[in-house]
């Protein structure tokens, strides 16, 4: 592994992460360097503004929501374990893990369900466990160009909720969400190779 010089030595604390992260050492090192690079003022934690200065996120339609997902529960500071915890969701899924896993242990963060949960929370802003029609509409609006009229967006949002909603409450719960995506290869879609 290349020993890339960084400004801060990796603190002992950073290595002590809860067992469900399972990020490899090499990746951990790189993530730490990246964390420090993002933390320009050397505070030791990341604020929203640090993440907002990543230019590529500015042109991502979901940039703000992605940043918010790094700050769970409305906190204002993101420390390194938290950073890694979020990114651990995107580790590629190792096929053999499932067989050997002890069923009593908590699911690894990069399991399919957890990945889906992560995506779910991008929609569910008020964290009530359901995607209401309004939330769907908001997400849709973010992702679609300006040419689409409001009526069209509304009907598309309606249709989306209608398709997934099984118990007829006008909102999509997490299980309904997961069911509507059961045919999708989530493991591959939400995996980042370099986090292996």
């Amino acid at each position, binding site marked *: 592994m290349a020993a890339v010089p960084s400004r801060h030595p990796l603190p002992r604390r950073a290595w002590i992460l809860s067992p469900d992260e399972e990020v490899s050492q090499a990746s951990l090192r790189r993530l730490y360097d990246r964390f420090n690079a993002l933390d320009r003022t050397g505070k030791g934690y990341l604020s929203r503004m640090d993440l907002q200065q990543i230019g590529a996120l500015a042109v991502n339609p979901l940039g703000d929501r992605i940043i918010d997902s790094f700050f769970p529960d409305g906190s204002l500071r993101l420390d390194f374990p938290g950073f890694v915890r979020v990114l651990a969701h995107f580790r590629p899924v190792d096929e053999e893990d499932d067989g050997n896993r002890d069923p009593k242990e908590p699911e690894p963060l990069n399991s399919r369900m957890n990945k889906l949960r992560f995506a779910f929370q991008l929609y569910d802003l008020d964290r009530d466990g359901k995607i209401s029609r309004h939330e769907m509409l908001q997400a849709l609006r973010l992702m679609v160009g300006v040419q689409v009229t409001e009526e069209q967006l509304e009907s598309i949002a309606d249709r989306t909720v209608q398709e997934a909603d099984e118990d007829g409450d006008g909102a999509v719960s997490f299980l309904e969400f997961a069911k509507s995506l059961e045919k999708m290869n989530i493991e591959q879609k939400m995996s980042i190779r*370099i986090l292996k």
Partner: protein
Amino acid sequence: MGIRGFVPFCPWNWCLLLATLQCCGASSELNRSTDSSARRELNVRYAAASSQPAETISVFTLDYDYVQIPYEVTLWILLASLAKIGFHLNRRLPGLMPESCLLILVGALVGAVIFGTDHKSPPVMDSSIYFLYLLPPIVLESGYFMPTRPFFENLGSILWWAGLGALLNAFGIGLSLYLICQVPAFGLGDINLLQNLLFGSLISAVDPVAVLAVFEEARVNEQLYMMIFGEALLNDGISVVLYNILIAFTKMHKFEDIEPVDILAGCARFVIVGCGGAFFGVIFGFISAFITRFTQNISAIEPLIVFMFSYLSYLVAETLYLSGILAITACAVTMKKYVEENVSQTSYTTIKYFMKMLSSVSETLIFIFMGVSTIGKNHEWNWAFICFTLVFCQIWRAISVFVLFYVSNQFRTFPFSIKDQCVIFYSGVRGAGSFSLAFLLPLSLFPRKKLFVTATLVVIYFTVFIQGITVGPLVRYLDVRKTNKKESINEELHTRLMDHLKAGVEDVCGQWSHYQVRDKFKKFDHKYLRKILIRNNLPKSSLVSLYKKLEMKQAVEMVESGVLSSTAFSTPHRAQRTQETKRLSPEDVESMRDILTRNMYQVRQRTLSYNKYNLQPQTSEKQAKEILIRRRNTFRESVKKGHSLPWGKPAGTKNIRYLSFPYSKPLPAGRDMKVAEFTDHDGSDSELPPITFNTHSPTGTIQERRWTPEVIPMKRLHGAGTPLHFGYRRNAGREEHLGRGGRAILRPKPLFHAVDEEFESEEESEEETPAFGSLLSSELRPGGNCNVSHSPLLQRK
């Protein structure tokens, strides 16, 4: 979907083509007859003149000989351009077959015309013209547009694959063909080993970039992309070097007794030629980067400098018998980074477009020449040779791919899967390079040159058409596991969301470099090279005035084109909401799906899409502009209504950071914008709704002054004779945002440079923070509203 659009255009295009052809053919017919008659007449006239002065001055003569060569060349180029226009008018065709197909067809057409009219084609291609004029632009363009960071990260693999692959292919094909030639039944006994090796070297020159456009949409991963690109880049150079060495061997006349010493000398020469060429290229790259540092006052010659220095590097390398191709490639790669920062925006665009144009012209000419040679009488057909050539090309390419990648996979962090290797194998499409080398074989040394040319042509046609057309479906088949059955709207929406999410998280992770060497180079580059090569004193006045000009123009355009119609952002009126869910007919669902597919924002591509024949930055730039403006607007609106800031420090700040001045330039501290300019505009502010939040972040006077320039031009725009004063004032706020948004968008170059790669992370951000920190805090006021701006200014006044 696209077929409908194709049909009405198709007849027009073909009519146009036919018309042009008729003119071409007719003119050449006419000219042939007239010029012979004209010549006779001329002779007669001269003969007469010698004895006595001419009788009359002819009022109207036709002098075709004088213009023949440029005339025909221009016609050919125009014809190819028309064909390309037609090709791209159809939305689906470019995804089906590579553009080389089209060019070859056009060439064949021209060849048919020339053959049919029994016209002697102008001597466009001989050895010196090809090597001195036609080849450099092609190589320059591919070197310039190469993404440098992935290239250097994968440099080891690329050199291993391209270099060794070319050698392996060349010698493999050559030797196998030699063995075939030994079989007396095929009648090829007079082709000796060296000739076979030479043929092998020229036939192994691949042009895989031509097929990149075909499977671009399949989101090839970056490494694969880079391998293909890198191979294309180095392949030409290596083939030419090999070709020259083997020709030198052939000329030695004693090829029966080639000793190991000669072979060693050949290898040494290979290495020296390659590295020497690259070395010269790097030197010239640095020189030209250095010179562009001083061209701020005469920016019109900046493209000239870029092109001339690249060309000079090529010529100098050729003088010393080094590899000019590698020299020009290295020059382009080296100077690109620095030149892009130094030159003005328009020069940058000019350089890009001119490079594409030159290379496309060269390639067109070569393909047309290929078409002309195809349809002619100088062919020699030998079934055995040609079939075995085809077979061996495929076999040896497969061998080289799988063997070499197997070895290099042991050392790579991200090994190439078998699928990737299949794609690389299948994209071994030959192109103009091999044809040129075959065509330029000296007849004296190669009595069976015609056979070689024919074989080369067959291989090119086969690979371009058959492989080129099927590589798209193959990649899609390999990549997409699921069949293209219709996804539900849910799936489509959610997968797009996930793609965006993944792209965003990848951006948070940043680029990870693998090599310490690269980091060292980056540090060295920042400490020394950039100080020498990048201009550091941008004159404030010209820059500011440039921005003002562009800002105004952009804003005017945007308003006029209705890009930011307010309807798109208004909150949904709840009045017409029907609560019951109605059953939607399938057509409605279909149309919804269509709307979604067409209008959803594309995910940001991490792999730079390279298209050999076209520059297509448009869609992603437009999309990015839209997203940024919307965010700023929605942000501003939500703030206007007195909502608390949803996300702590406003999102607007981050937009500004990358949208304002080119990075790494600290803003001039106090810009001398006259405060007096505000005077006439303060009145208009009274119409704007009052804003309650003057609290917010500390705003130093400097920071306020700093971003006033952005505000001013827009205001002036409104002030200057707008018919709807009231309406404009109402919208003034929005348009000021337009202004800022407009200005923001003006320099897509730094924006996308910042977005794409290279120095995006770490060092770059370190440098810019001091510059932008204050700017950020100035923009920090939510929405950075002009409204707010004027209050302190009013106070100051």
